[in-house]
């Protein structure tokens, strides 16, 4: 009886497996088709962008030659007598970056906590904060610089404020995203003890938020040095301002000292922030 049952059962089982295998192949085909469509779209986008920018290998070749000629005949060798003139503006760039970072950190803490769904008081406040942050981010620091130079005149104040404002756009979003990813269970546990809003934030949220907060703030300091150098070009103070003076007067060998100093500044700040991060985290 049992052997008969086996004889009847086996073909049915085999059919089932065969059906499953066919199903698997059908699913694989669908995935393959989706992938092909995706690659076709990517290829089309690249071709479109390629033609749109008039990109051609020939131009790269001649352009590189021109650039090499410019670097070797005009920029080099650097005229290190200009070093003294760059020192003060270089320090100014560091001040601008630091104060700009502090401004954006302070405001970003506020907007970040209000924008994150889990720490905000109300969804409407969260949405409004997100919108403010996105608006500040939509305008590049350079455009803020131009606007603020008109308002406050030439000099580092305009540049610092430009860095601060555009920084809220970046740090506010980063802080809000870090906050939204924290473990709600830990926050609930603190809340369940009868803690107030501020206590829940201080004891439940802050320990989880701290690492992201420090890492992002220091990263902003890195970015600020780079942006501060560019802001000088529009007269918003710092090393870029002196650099542009040299370029305008065709003093390229002095300008190359400025470029080297920006390079050195970036390296120093990057090294320092990395060390601070190691210490704090």
């Amino acid at each position, binding site marked *: 009886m049992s052997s008969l049952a086996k004889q009847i059962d086996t073909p049915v089982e085999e059919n089932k497996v065969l059906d499953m295998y066919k199903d698997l192949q059908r699913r694989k085909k669908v995935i393959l088709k989706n992938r092909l469509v995706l690659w076709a779209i990517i290829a089309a986008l690249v071709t479109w962008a390629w033609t749109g920018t008039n990109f051609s290998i020939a131009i790269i070749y001649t352009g590189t030659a021109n650039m090499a000629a410019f670097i070797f005949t005009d920029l080099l060798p650097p005229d290190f007598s200009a070093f003294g003139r760059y020192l003060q503006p270089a320090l100014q760039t560091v001040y601008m970056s630091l104060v700009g970072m502090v401004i954006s950190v302070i405001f970003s803490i506020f907007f970040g906590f209000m924008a994150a769904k889990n720490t905000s008081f109300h969804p409407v406040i969260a949405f409004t904060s997100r919108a403010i942050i996105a608006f500040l981010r939509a305008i590049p620091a350079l455009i803020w610089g131009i606007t603020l130079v008109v308002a406050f005149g030439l000099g580092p104040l305009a540049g610092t404020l430009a860095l601060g404002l555009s920084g809220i756009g970046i740090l506010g979003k980063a802080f809000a995203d870090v906050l939204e990813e924290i473990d709600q269970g830990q926050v609930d546990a603190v809340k369940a003890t009868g803690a107030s809003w501020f206590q829940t934030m201080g004891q*439940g949220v802050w*320990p989880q938020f701290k690492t992201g907060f420090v890492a992002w703030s220091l990263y902003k300091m890195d970015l600020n040095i780079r942006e501060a150098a560019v802001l000088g070009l529009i007269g918003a103070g710092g090393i870029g301002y002196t650099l542009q003076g040299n370029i305008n007067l065709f003093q390229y060998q002095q300008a190359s000292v400025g470029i080297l100093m920006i390079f050195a500044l970036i390296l120093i700040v990057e090294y320092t922030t990395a060390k601070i991060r190691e210490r704090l985290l």
Partner: protein
Amino acid sequence: MSEVVLETKDLSMEFPDGTQALKNVTLTIKKGELVSIIGPSGAGKSTFMRSLNMLNKPTEGQIVFEGENVLKARGKQLRQIRRRIGMVFQHFNLIKRSPTYQNVLHGRLGYLPSLKGGLGRFSEEDTRQALEILRRVGLEDQAFKRADELSGGQQQRVGIAQAIAQTPSLLLADEPIASLDPSSSENVMTYLKNVCQEDGLTSIVNLHQVDFAKKFAHRIIGIKAGEVVFDGSPKELTEGITNYLYYSK
């Protein structure tokens, strides 16, 4: 033994997506009882427990805790109710980056001014008390370690310590041993029961291990699909009822 600590009347909760998590739960919990709520995953055990201290908000019904209407409480009144209800969680929910003793001190937050508590400026008396409680749950050697350096069973004992630091009258434990191995489970449940007896606490423990419920609880409540289907002593919980709870559709 007859004093009522907690009373729920027709407590119902519907999630925004339409799921009916609780249906007319009416229960009376008396002082000193150790009540275990059993039932399959998704039955509404956690939802019920989290409703009691308003971590989620029931849609209908009434909760009366020591004479106060919990669902009507707001702001300061709600915080004062919460500090009298200690809660222990399945995933411990300790602040992983903070030291163990500080996690215990979090139990004192409800008694501190907002600013002081938020900045973690706990008094000497509270700190001594927290260390004493850690000793009670056998963790004096772990007091200064970061919470996430402890084993699961130890972390859950810190969770219990934090709840006791609140000097609560009711202790809620939401599947306290679901993420622990059998021997740690035994250990944690023993600490929980002892502490409740010593301090005269009333406690409600969600469990899905029926044998643990039978062993530790004075009273067992079975919940299925948001409804109370059993309420009685461990002896009254027959195999038939257990099967009905967990296996029948």
